[in-house]
């Protein structure tokens, strides 16, 4: 009942501590640590089931205050107790739980301790390959420990034990040799090291060494050794004595050892001792006893086999459960990975399609832009072309209009003949184009008594007369001649490349045609006549002086006035100016009639017997 009392005290203590509001978290943590240390001290004597409740309380408190190191240790202790009592299934899962936590803690010492506990279990389960793997891992982590750390000796010890269990005795011996060279103060550890070395020596058949080691163990560590160690010592001593051929001593030692195994769980040691006794008795010839112990050995072995088989089944179950769990986890992971891959693929597809879309959009936009551009360009060209066409049209129209305007401006609207403006614009070019020794005849024509027609028949009738008159003039002239309505009823006829004689004929023909033409005015026939004066160009007014075309025109006009004055229906043409000395033209013009009379101006006329009036 003492353990119940102890447990109750711990609970009360911990609850009291928790309830104490003034206590800090640090103090509570310290309390938990102290409680754990005390418990560990109590458990030194071996695996005690009674310590489990306290252990669990401490674990829960430590978990509450995130003291993960203590949590791991308590898990390992419980797992170790379970292992010792054959609950391999839970022991295995608890060891793995502790290992997971230790891995998260990232503390090499904790990791080493946890791994060593796992190795102990794996060796118990005869999973030597697992143990070897963990040994490799622990050795690797051990490299990061400080050189004086006793955990290094622990590592060597477990390396040796693993080799021993796997049957590589020489490797085990080597590791123990190395382990013994390391600094060590822990007596229990030294005892374990020594005992293991003696066991290895026995496996190698070196019973002398084994006996030496066991003597050392007995002398130094028997007091600190736990029950199991003492039993193993007894077994090893008996075995070495047997190997030495000291059968009676071996039997005595084995018997003593065997007594210690009754009512304990140390079946393996019991079996070994029984086998040893059978062998020893057989070798001393006591076959009855040999048979007895062989039978006992056989029974113990059967029980051990039974236990091993059950444990193996449990182990397999645990392994299966773990494997199943791992498989599930692995499946889930695979599924997750697959899904993640699918998501990634999906994203990629989406991104790709997005990119494709963007690409197509870009292409579309570019195409549209290109189309728009082409269309715009096309429209532009078309518009430009249209504009150009329009401009060309307009230009053409303008040109036409201009031409028309020019034509209009150069044409008399009533008669369709050119007007004075046209004459002035073109006469210079005609003068310049004149060939040498060719004349231009400037001829002024005026309708006689036209005012009377207007007054009598009206202006419209006058206009009709003018139109008909112009038609007559057109008919009587060449296409190369220039016919101009000079103003009112007065017309100018410019006839290039024509001599004075030919001009006389032309003007006569005009006079006659006009005289004979029946002008129809308001249904009545009206007779009209015209007077004509002309002069040739170039005209020499002196020996070296030539009259300008303007002067010639005025001379022609003077001839017209003279014809009007003389008779009307007459033409007077200036043939030449024959002056012995240069004549001032203005004078000649003002005194035209006088000069004609004087004979300075030679004229010709259609009027016979022309008498120039004064």
């Amino acid at each position: 009942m003492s353990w119940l009392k102890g447990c109750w005290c711990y609970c009360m203590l911990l609850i009291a501590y928790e309830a104490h509001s003034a206590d800090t978290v640090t103090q509570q943590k310290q309390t938990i640590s102290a409680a754990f240390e005390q418990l560990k001290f109590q458990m030194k004597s071996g695996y005690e089931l009674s310590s489990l409740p306290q252990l669990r309380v401490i674990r829960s408190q430590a978990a509450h205050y995130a003291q993960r190191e203590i949590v791991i240790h308590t898990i390992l202790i419980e797992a170790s107790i379970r292992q010792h009592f054959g609950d391999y299934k839970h022991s295995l899962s608890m060891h793995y739980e502790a290992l997971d936590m230790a891995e998260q803690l990232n503390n090499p010492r904790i990791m080493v301790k946890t791994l060593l506990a796992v190795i102990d279990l794996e060796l118990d389960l005869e999973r030597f390959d697992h143990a070897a793997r963990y040994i490799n891992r622990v050795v690797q982590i051990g490299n990061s420990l400080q050189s004086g750390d006793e955990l290094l000796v622990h590592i060597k010890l477990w390396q040796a034990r693993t080799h021993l269990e796997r049957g590589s005795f020489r490797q085990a011996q080597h590791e123990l040799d190395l382990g013994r060279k390391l600094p060590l103060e822990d007596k229990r550890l030294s005892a374990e090291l020594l005992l293991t070395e003696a066991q290895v020596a026995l496996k190698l058949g070196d019973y002398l060494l084994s006996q030496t080691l066991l003597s050392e163990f007995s002398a130094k560590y028997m007091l600190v050794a736990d029950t199991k160690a003492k039993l193993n010592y007894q077994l090893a001593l008996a075995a070495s004595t047997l190997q030495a051929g000291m059968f009676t001593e071996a039997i005595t030692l084995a018997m003593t050892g065997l007594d210690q195994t009754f009512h304990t769980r140390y079946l393996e040691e019991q079996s070994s001792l029984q086998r040893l006794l059978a062998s020893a008795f057989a070798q001393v010839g006591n076959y009855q006893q040999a048979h007895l112990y062989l039978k006992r050995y056989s029974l113990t072995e059967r029980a051990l086999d039974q236990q091993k088989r059950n444990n193996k089944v449990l182990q397999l179950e645990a392994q299966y459960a773990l494997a199943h769990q791992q498989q599930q986890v692995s499946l889930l992971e695979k599924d997750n990975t697959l899904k993640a891959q699918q998501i990634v693929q999906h994203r990629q597809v989406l991104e790709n399609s997005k990119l494709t879309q963007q690409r197509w959009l870009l292409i579309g936009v570019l195409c549209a832009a290109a189309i728009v551009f082409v269309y715009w360009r096309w429209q532009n060209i078309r518009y430009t072309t249209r504009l150009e066409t329009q401009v060309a049209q307009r230009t053409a129209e303008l040109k036409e209009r201009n031409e028309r305007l020019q034509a209009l401006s150069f044409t008399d609207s009533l008669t369709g003949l050119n007007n004075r403006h046209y004459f002035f614009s073109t006469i210079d070019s005609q003068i310049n184009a004149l060939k040498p020794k060719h004349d231009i005849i400037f001829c002024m024509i005026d309708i006689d008594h036209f005012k009377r027609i207007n007054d009598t028949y009206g202006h419209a009738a006058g206009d009709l007369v003018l139109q008909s008159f112009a038609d007559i003039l057109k008919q009587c002239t060449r296409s190369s001649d220039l016919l101009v309505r000079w103003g009112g009823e007065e017309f100018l006829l410019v006839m290039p490349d024509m001599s004075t004689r030919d001009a006389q004929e032309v003007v006569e023909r005009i006079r006659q045609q006009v005289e004979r033409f029946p002008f129809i005015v308001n249904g009545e026939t009206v007779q009209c006549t015209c007077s004509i004066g002309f002069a040739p160009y170039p005209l020499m007014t002196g020996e070296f002086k030539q009259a300008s075309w303007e002067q010639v025109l005025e001379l022609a006009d003077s001839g017209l006035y003279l014809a009007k004055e003389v008779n009307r229906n007459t033409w007077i043409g200036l043939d030449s100016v024959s002056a012995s000395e240069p004549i001032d033209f203005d004078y000649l013009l003002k005194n035209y009639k006088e000069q004609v009379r004087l004979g300075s101006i030679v004229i010709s006329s259609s009027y016979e017997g022309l008498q120039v009036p004064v």
Partner: protein
Amino acid sequence: MKWCLFFLFSSFYVQAQAPLVVDIISSENFSLRYEEFLDGRSVLDVEDFHPSTKGSHIEIIEMVLLQQALHLGGEQRKVIFNPKPSVNIIEFSDLIAGESLVLARSTWHEDLLDYKGSLFVSEPLVEYGEYEAGFYVAKRNIALHNMPAERLNQLTVVANPRWKVDWRALNNTDVNIVSFIGPWETMLEMVETEIVDAMLVNFSVSQSLVLNFEGREYVPINELKLFLPDSRHFVVSKRHPDGKRVFAALNKGLAILKERGILRKALTESGFINEKVAPWHMVNEAMLMRGIQ
């Protein structure tokens, strides 16, 4: 006094002339094959140890070597073989009791540990690390022929846990072990029927290393071998009146044979030590502790 001297002399003479009885295993017909191997030769004249009979050859060679060693060690008596069932021999009961003198079959050192008080253990016939074996697979199982050492964790090997040395050797590799207690032939059949992938067998004497058994062929996985981590010894009864003398002669003779290189020659020529696999990778090399011990 005269009679006393005569009695002593005659008893020594009788002892000197009495044949040396050596136990052999009766379960296999070793006596016949031994005679077949000698083919009329004196056992002391045997210098060529190449196998000339069908079946396991090492037992024959050990019978020859034991006699040659005893002779070289000074034991001149004629040897008579006494076939006994293998169970008796494994238990060494007759030897322990002194009813048998010596066994013409070497034994693993590990199996002698508890009997060292009753048996003289000779110098090793096969040294630690000399006994090599291969992973024999069915010849038609081509996929396994060239399996690399890194993939040994995928190999399933059948083994008998009673063969402690084999068991220990395999436990120090990555292979998966299927425990089977039964006849050797059944184990081969398990390999043939692919219940397991391989079995540990010492290398065949044939040039191709092929093991032919009842028309079925087995080959070792190329370039992989392992050694059986123990030494083999002859044992002599301590209780037998001739034990001490015979043991002394045996050890002396073995030392001479070893010195003359005959032990190595015999083991090599008989195929026990196979030079063909000398460069192969030893998968449990760590157990050798080369360069450490």
